[in-house]
């Protein structure tokens, strides 16, 4: 019995048809909204393209051109020949000449170099007498990838050099005529040949800071920076745009509060949050992965504070550009991607091509990673990392200035 006020029952076929129609309506509506949100549409194309390019550039496990210091105690024709051949391998880029081991270690500590080559004073004598000279390479093992590359390249170079040079050297004495054997002739000597004696050079690689080359030791200090980049930036990126979305923005700008007061007021609370996160990640890293804390935490704070402020300022820049929280999240991701890939967090910085390194140098995370690894793993004092701190402060100042000028107390 169906009266006028009763809803009619519908069959399964009709119900399916209705369901399809409703799904169609939802799909259509979503598509329309997506198309209307121009910036988001841009990110649909932008983010995959950026990802592809960045990964393509950054992922390069084939480490080359490691900035290297040289302590040439022999300073002879042989040592110069040896060093120039070492440089020709392209693994090492001999950028510094140092006078002492201490100086080399200081450069390692501040991450200006990734390796230091030490040539002993008695190189010539030992070479010519076939007694085996030892070349030491100090490697910054806080980055296990770099350290492995140094070890591989160093030892390979030692073996190669030995087998090529041996025929020239054995039995030779200063002033005496050499055996006049061309290097290519080395194949004519079997290893058992009596001309082959003790190896004339051995390359000893000394991994510094992280001798076991454990990945966790390398990753955790970097992770502090990566986590801070994402969380801090997102916090403030959403902060202004949230006021816009909720309608409190119009109320806020009608009060006497000034632009810079809004900015500073939005940054300060998160500085505290940021330090809590630093403590949390380091504490867990130490407890679970046995990540050492060699340097002073106060020194780390001198790097962390400007870094936090820089990330929060970057968030504010995003916030004053974005029109919705969704857009702000996407923009943050757009900044986060290069930070993670080009800063040296995942892939060795020195292995990246030049343009990628330039971009990397402009990112605060790159500098903070050097500070975090320097202080935590190498026990470097913050003074030796001054330039990194300055780079971060400069970034922060620029970002904050942009944020304050783009934040308008108007509704245009």
């Amino acid at each position, binding site marked *: 019995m169906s009266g006028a006020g009763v809803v009619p029952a519908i069959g399964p076929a009709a119900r399916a048809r209705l369901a399809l129609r409703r799904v169609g309506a939802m799909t259509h509506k979503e598509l329309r909204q997506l198309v209307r949100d121009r910036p988001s549409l841009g990110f649909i194309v932008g983010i995959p393209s950026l990802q592809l390019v960045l990964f393509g550039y950054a992922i390069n496990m084939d480490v080359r051109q490691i900035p290297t210091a040289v302590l040439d105690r022999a300073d002879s024709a042989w040592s110069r020949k040896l060093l120039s051949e070492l440089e020709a391998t392209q693994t090492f880029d001999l950028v510094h000449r140092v006078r002492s081991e201490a100086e080399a270690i200081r450069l390692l500590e501040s991450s200006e170099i990734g390796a230091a080559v030490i040539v002993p004073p008695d190189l010539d004598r030992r070479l010519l007498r076939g007694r085996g000279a030892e070349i030491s390479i100090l490697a910054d093992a806080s980055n296990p990838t770099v350290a492995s590359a140094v070890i591989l390249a160093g030892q390979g170079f030692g073996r190669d050099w030995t087998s090529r040079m041996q025929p020239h050297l054995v039995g030779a004495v200063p002033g005496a005529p050499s055996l006049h054997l061309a290097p290519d002739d080395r194949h004519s000597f079997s290893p058992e040949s009596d001309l082959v004696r003790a190896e004339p050079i051995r390359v000893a690689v000394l991994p510094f800071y992280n001798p076991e080359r454990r990945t966790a030791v390398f990753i955790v200090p970097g992770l502090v920076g990566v986590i801070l980049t994402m969380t801090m930036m997102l916090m403030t990126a959403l902060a202004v745009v949230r006021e816009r979305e909720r309608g*409190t923005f*119009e109320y806020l700008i*009608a009060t*006497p509060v000034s632009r810079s007061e809004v900015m500073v007021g939005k940054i300060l609370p998160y500085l505290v949050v940021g330090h809590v996160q630093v403590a949390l990640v380091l504490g867990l890293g130490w407890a679970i992965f046995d990540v050492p804390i060699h340097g002073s935490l106060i020194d780390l704070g001198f790097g962390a504070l400007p870094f936090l402020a820089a990330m929060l300022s970057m968030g504010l820049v995003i916030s004053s550009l974005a029109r919705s929280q969704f857009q702000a999240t996407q923009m943050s991701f757009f900044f986060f991607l290069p930070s993670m890939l080009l800063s040296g967090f995942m892939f060795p910085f020195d292995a990246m091509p030049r343009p990628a390194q330039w971009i990397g140098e402009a990112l605060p995370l790159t500098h903070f990673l050097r500070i975090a690894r320097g202080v935590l793993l190498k026990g470097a004092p913050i003074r030796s990392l001054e330039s990194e701190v300055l780079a971060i402060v400069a970034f922060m100042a620029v970002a904050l200035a942009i944020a304050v000028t783009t934040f308008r107390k108007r509704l245009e």
Partner: protein
Amino acid sequence: MSRSDEPPIIAATGLTRRFGERLAVDDLDLVVRPREIFGCLGPNGSGKTTLMRILMGLLAPSEGHATVLGCELPREAERLRPSVGYMTQRFSLYEDLTVRENLGFASQVFGLSRAETRERVTETLEEFALDGYAGARAGDLSGGWQQRVALAAATIHRPRLLVLDEPTAGLDPQSRREFWEKLFALAHAGATIFVSTHYMDEAVRCHRLCLLRDGRVAAIGTPAELCAPLDGRVVNLRVPEPERAIADLASEPLVASTTQLGDTLHVLLGPDAPPAVEAASRIDRFLRDRGHHEVRAGESEPNLEDAFVALVVAERRAAEEATP
């Protein structure tokens, strides 16, 4: 000293604001005097919100001048801020903060010290009968209470001028009445209030008001002044078939518009109609000729709505004459 002798609180001349091609505010002149409740009445899209935003220094006018409390806008907007309170159309307090926290924030952001804030918040909670809700989140309150909190927040720094953008939209009659009692108390205490509304019963309560149409001031004055030109131009009718009568009256040239109020028809006469008494008998005859019985027609008092409708009708007529 009367209001008109003192310098005006708001003075605008030739105010114009364009959004692309569209004129939201069009060559508008306006004077608001001290301690008056000045109403701004107009349909959606007539430029009320844009006008208020300009007067708050939140939007720059494309042309013209606006001086509020002696501050030239938008140049001196920041100097103006401490002396004005603003309620946006949409609820704009922090929904995740409590009523007390919202009031505290408002107070401090307007520069009151911690001690002053404590005192003012307590006073304000009491004044607005919000004590019972002090600890409630602003977002959990009903519309009426939210608007009351918003008004409390807008007045916590004792502003000399209050700009309220449709503060009672969507509220029930009781809440609206209470809200207006508050407005009168504030005006009595010396504040000037610039308020926009859709409600005729609220518009009548303003000291003065302006009717806004398409960004222009269509009329300005006291409610009585706005109704005065319509004296003798309103007729009330009672007929058994009101729907059919409305349709028939559409072809009667004397009638400008007809509004149904239950069983009564409220008829506004055109500008060239004879006085209401005479028009009533002509309408009576007109309807009887069309088969209506038991028609009772008589003169009635004009109200603000009539004033508004008369303006619209006059405009339409002018437009029709311009394009034959």
